[in-house]
């Protein structure tokens, strides 16, 4: 399925800057961003932009061995909870399949995914944190 540039342009805040929407009423971080109603409490009082923390841990994961053309084999997908309470689904990078574990600390890093439909694709991926102290806030 092709994607035209307006969609990627519209999604710059979340795709390239990792900005979620924090509900002014209940504080839940809505990510992905969707409309103007908080998923958690149903409030439409408004959101403020929230810069999601780049550090988190793996909630669950899977190593995919069967993928359509154009994907890495294996592709490791993970659900990550960030330190500030956001939850994301991302692919992992610089990780060995056998090393990935639940509760493993990870850092979200900006990576190029390649090219599709004549457009370069970028986004965040989760990289295992090997030693403490090597992470930028």
């Amino acid at each position: 399925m092709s994607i035209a540039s307006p969609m990627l342009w519209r999604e710059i805040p979340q795709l390239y800057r990792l900005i979620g929407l924090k509900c002014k009423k209940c504080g839940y971080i809505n990510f992905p961003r969707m409309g103007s109603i908080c998923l958690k409490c149903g409030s439409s009082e408004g959101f403020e932009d929230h810069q999601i923390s780049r550090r988190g841990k793996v909630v669950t994961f899977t190593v995919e061995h069967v993928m359509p053309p154009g994907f890495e084999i294996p592709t490791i997908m993970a659900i990550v909870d960030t330190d500030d309470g956001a939850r994301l689904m991302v692919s992992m990078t610089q990780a060995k399949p056998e090393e990935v574990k639940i509760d493993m600390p990870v850092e979200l890093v900006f990576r190029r995914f390649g090219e599709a439909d004549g457009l370069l694709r970028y986004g965040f991926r989760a990289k295992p944190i090997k030693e403490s102290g090597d992470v930028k806030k």
Partner: protein
Amino acid sequence: MIRVKRCEIELKNKVAVVGFGMIKFGELFEKSYEDMMSEAYLNALKSVDKGIDQKEIQAAWLGTCIGSIIKREILTGASLAEPLSFVPRPVSRLENACATGSDSFRNACFAVASGAYDVALALGVEKMRDVPPIESLQGVVARGMHPIYARGMTAPAVFAFYANRHMHDFGTTKQQMAYVAVKNHKNGALDPYAHFQRPIKLEDALKAPMVCSPLGLFDCCPVTDGAAAVLITRADLAKKYTDAPVYVAGLGLATDTFNMASKPDFTTFYATVEAGKEAYRMAGIGPEDVDLAEVHDCFTITEILDTEDLGFCKKGEGGKFIEQGNTEIGGKIPINPSGGLKSKGHPIGATGIAQICEISWHLRNEADKRQVSGAEIGLTHNLGGTGSIAGVTILTSKQL
């Protein structure tokens, strides 16, 4: 999430199913979408004991999902009206991921219960194998969703997330998942409509190639073509068509978020829990009253979660419950006597309707070698998306 007042139309005992038609599921290279649909429809007509004239059917609900993605067939209700010579009667075309079939049935039931129609058709059909398997659900999900955040998430990956977390939290094992596959293949071997009609060995399931860890090939349902149809009428008209109508006692449909990042946890399908609660409440029964169930086992782990989420055993104990044989035909609560999605196959839009057919045959004592003896109350459970939609139906052989 926000709590709201639930459905107040009491459907219980008002609607009956009087016709049941399936085709043998499989890789039906020789049959088109329309061929499969008309075969299931004609089988449903033929199954009406006292006969039915096609013209008595006033409206139809067509459950079909993948067609609009791979674009092989005409869109709109004409997809059904044209091949079945149903023009100009109303046909609603419904798409709700893998729960498409049960939601089509549900809408047809509400229409009949409302008095709008005396007889309605609910038909589910899917042509999955006109594209290579990698381009069906596997590719559609990985490529067609959000360009970055759903990028790389295949259908098995969704359920593998749940499998890994369930194993971590409750000690569920790969062997327990393999038991689901072994049981469903054993049942499927007795089902003339099943895609795979052969038993498998536990060790073969355990050593199968890995698809999406921890799910191996035998943890995944196949890519299957198929169709199924049922005829629905008001309960007070049912005896005109058959002496053994199957009554609808409860219907539930519930949503959860689609985005994996918005899920509260990865050990429960909340849409299943909510749809189950609604169906049980409407029927006035609990899980302990159910004699058999057809549940959505797109992956073996899904059946383990379904068994817990529908209340057949406690949360976390689904793997053990199945391993101990409780869900075999003849066990405490037989689950997927048809072979389930794992063995019977999963033609998306047809699955929910096929589940209704299977339960109905058991309630009518027509399930032959796989018959669950004395079955009076049966349940179907159909799950879609990333667990983002679930439909539960409770069917009975007598009005409750």
